[in-house]
């Protein structure tokens, strides 16, 4: 069953612009994570935000979490062509070892 849903499905921007991707989920969570996948490769963990946190930063990444709205956003600032990838949010199921992934946002950064 799909827990997280990313929005938009695809996003195309110019280098230097900011990219914002959103994720909505349905049930209570302990944490939410964002992953990145380059074309034809495995996923790479980017950032984890716990349910008691509202915002987290890592380099050019900024993640927010609104548990009242059951939503999260990933902001990539000053994007680069190398940021071109698919981005997935993943949520746990209230303490389970399992993660449930959304379908992803495909980001294209044009040079």
């Amino acid at each position: 069953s799909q827990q997280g849903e990313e929005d938009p499905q695809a996003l195309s921007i110019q280098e230097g612009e900011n990219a914002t991707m959103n994720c909505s989920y349905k049930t209570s969570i302990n944490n939410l994570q964002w992953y990145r996948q380059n074309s034809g490769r495995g996923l790479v963990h980017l950032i984890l935000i716990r349910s008691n946190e509202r915002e987290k930063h890592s380099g050019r990444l900024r993640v927010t979490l609104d548990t009242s709205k059951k939503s999260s956003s990933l902001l990539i600032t000053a994007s680069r062509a190398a940021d071109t990838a698919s981005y997935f949010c993943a949520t746990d199921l209230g303490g389970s070892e399992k993660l449930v992934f959304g379908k992803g946002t495909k980001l294209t950064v044009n040079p």
Partner: protein
Amino acid sequence: DVKVTQSSRYLVKRTGEKVFLECVQDMDHENMFWYRQDPGLGLRLIYFSYDVKMKEKGDIPEGYSVSREKKERFSLILESASTNQTSMYLCASSFYRAPGDQYFGPGTRLLVL
């Protein structure tokens, strides 16, 4: 660095063949996972294991089985491959009782003819 390796990057098999996909991790992780990824459907969990010889079904276990005889190795088995099992298969691992970072292998793209 955590490393998760998968036995093949690309695999072509015929309908009805038995297929083994192997995954090895070198970080002493307790949890290991098998996903399949299809366009428009995202990642779907097939099976996971939280300890040697332990396994639990994920969302789409039908047509698959798994084996975990050693902590570092988790195998996905397609007993009789079918064309609808053509997909990208991703293995991942994580620490026990810490549904935090999952570390993924590079994936195996399986084509069943």
